[in-house]
């Protein structure tokens, strides 16, 4: 940072005088646009233009693996197929099940942990940092390793479960059993993202001023009463924020599931993103999968709207 003024002087001297005058004399309005437009242009090129392209494709029978085949306009047929397709509804149900249970578990455990950490026992800052580590890691790389931990017989997970329940470890195959595979994914997701909910809840708890509790104390409100009448309602916007963030993220869930089960066994863990990937990059039904992608967009966009409103409410408190 120390050599910046010198650099500016050099740039200023190297710039032709009329241009330099123009740059120095730029109006605030011009600077605002000069600063904002590169970001907007990049997002238009990498996000919006492809999105419009996808909308166009969604009305055709285009297949990316046959770029030279004749492309036909099929109108709304792709959308009709998507909304009538049982497999796709199934994948939405599987996604909903996954989103629901991960949110329930993460909110309960995350809030509980935040509440305990907020008792400010000795060393709480250190242990908070330790607890936060899983959420910073790559879901793909760590999910891949959980496959090893879940291994029947040799994995530590089945060993611990068999130690606790007495079921022979060879029979504990979390990832290949129809009943347990969805829960295997929910466990990993909860392991990874509970710290996230915990951190936001902790901020919520810390935002409650002490004098409110002190006033309740003067009024002889019980600890139980204080928890339900002060702690929970005042932390609620933060909890909601965490829930919405997790909801959106898990609605899009892809990498961890791909590496843990790949959608299997059968298709019991095939969340929407995996179905979409299969249609788009394995069956190469580009037109149909574009329509599916648009349907997902609309769903996420709806969630995002709710989320931004909640976000503003939290901010304006």
């Amino acid at each position: 940072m120390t050599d910046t003024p010198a650099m500016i002087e050099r740039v200023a001297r190297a710039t032709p005088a009329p241009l330099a005058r123009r740059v120095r004399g730029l109006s605030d309005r011009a600077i605002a646009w000069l600063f904002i437009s590169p970001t907007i242009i990049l997002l238009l090129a990498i996000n919006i233009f492809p999105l419009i392209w996808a909308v166009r494709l969604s009305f055709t029978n285009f297949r990316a693996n046959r770029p030279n085949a004749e492309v036909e306009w099929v109108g709304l047929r792709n959308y009709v197929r998507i909304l009538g397709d049982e497999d796709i509804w199934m994948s939405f149900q599987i996604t909903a099940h996954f989103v629901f249970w991960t949110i329930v578990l993460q909110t309960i455990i995350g809030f509980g942990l935040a509440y305990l950490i907020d008792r400010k026992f000795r060393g709480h800052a250190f242990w908070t940092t330790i607890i936060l580590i899983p959420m910073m890691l790559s879901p793909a790389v760590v999910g891949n390793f959980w496959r090893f931990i879940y291994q029947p017989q040799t994995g530590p997970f089945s060993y611990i479960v068999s130690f606790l329940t007495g079921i022979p470890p060879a029979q504990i195959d979390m990832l290949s059993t129809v009943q347990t595979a969805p829960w295997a994914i929910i466990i990993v997701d909860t392991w990874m993202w509970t710290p996230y909910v915990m951190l936001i809840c902790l901020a919520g708890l810390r935002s409650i001023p002490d004098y409110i509790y002190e006033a309740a104390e003067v009024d002889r409100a019980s600890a139980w009463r204080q928890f339900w009448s002060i702690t929970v309602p005042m932390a609620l916007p933060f909890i909601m924020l965490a829930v919405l963030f997790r909801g959106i993220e898990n609605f899009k869930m892809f990498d961890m599931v791909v590496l843990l089960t790949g959608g299997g066994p059968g298709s019991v863990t095939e969340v929407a993103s995996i179905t979409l990937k299969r249609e788009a990059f394995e069956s190469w039904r580009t037109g149909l999968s574009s329509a599916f992608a648009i349907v997902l967009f609309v769903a996420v966009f709806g969630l995002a709207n709710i989320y931004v409103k909640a976000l503003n409410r939290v901010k304006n408190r």
Partner: protein
Amino acid sequence: MSGEAYSVVTPSPAVKRIAGVVVVLYALVTMFPLVWIVMTSFKSPPDSIRYPPALVFTPTLEGYCNLFTVRTRQTAEFIETLGPPAGICDEITRSRNMVIAGASNYWPRFRNSVVIAFGSTFLAVGLGTLAAYGFSRFKVPLADDLLFFILSTRMMPPIAVAIPIYLMYRELGLSDTALGMILLYTAVNVSLAVWLLKGFIDEIPREYEEAAMIDGYSRLQAFVRVVLPQATTGIAATAIFCLIFAWNEYAFAVLLTSGTAQTAPPFIPTIIGEGGMDWPAVAAGTTIFLVPILVFTILLRRHLLRGITFGAVRK
């Protein structure tokens, strides 16, 4: 309530102790998978799949050796004709009746991860700082709509974005190139960068620049000499968040890269040995891949909250 002096605000020592024990237990359980990864990376392949799972074992570098090399099986007679082993990996490989045939793809993939993560972070933070300053200091028409638009691009499911990007990159020749991945990650990260940096810049009092401008600085000079130095911490925190996203990303990487530009996350799950997964090598690759993130998490711990909520919650 155990006594008069203790309350929800000032918990009693007993409450503190119980809270502490529960949190520490949770932390230990949550660290177990990570400890297991690091332990497995130092096991030999037979030790890694022993039943019951081995807690005590003789540490070996075999996993790390296997991670970085490609090996071929040879007869004992042939191995005897070779000279003395060059280094520890050579020795371990020969004890398994194999010889090192060359370097594996792990290092090139790791290098791709570094190049793509740093390249996209640099661009995203650069663009993001400018845009954040624009939104923070000037009356931009439709500012709220633009900011929402910027954020909403981050809400899109990656696979849905990947379909048109795949086609577009195929047309432009950007498939499986570092440049293509850098641009894509920049676009994803810039939304986070704008939102976070706007929060940081909002906190710098306008009076600083105004004073500088009264002293004869132009707006641009005031931005470079006054605002940027003040925003250094925020810029650094934002950069680390962008870096972590790009480092960890899998969905785009697995769909849009296959060879020369492939990053480490899609590569690590493909590490296989003779007759199945070579788990010590996978664990070694995972460990090396996770260490930078551990360092960054510790550096970032004070700003984590802001980063994960797009600056909505500041503490």
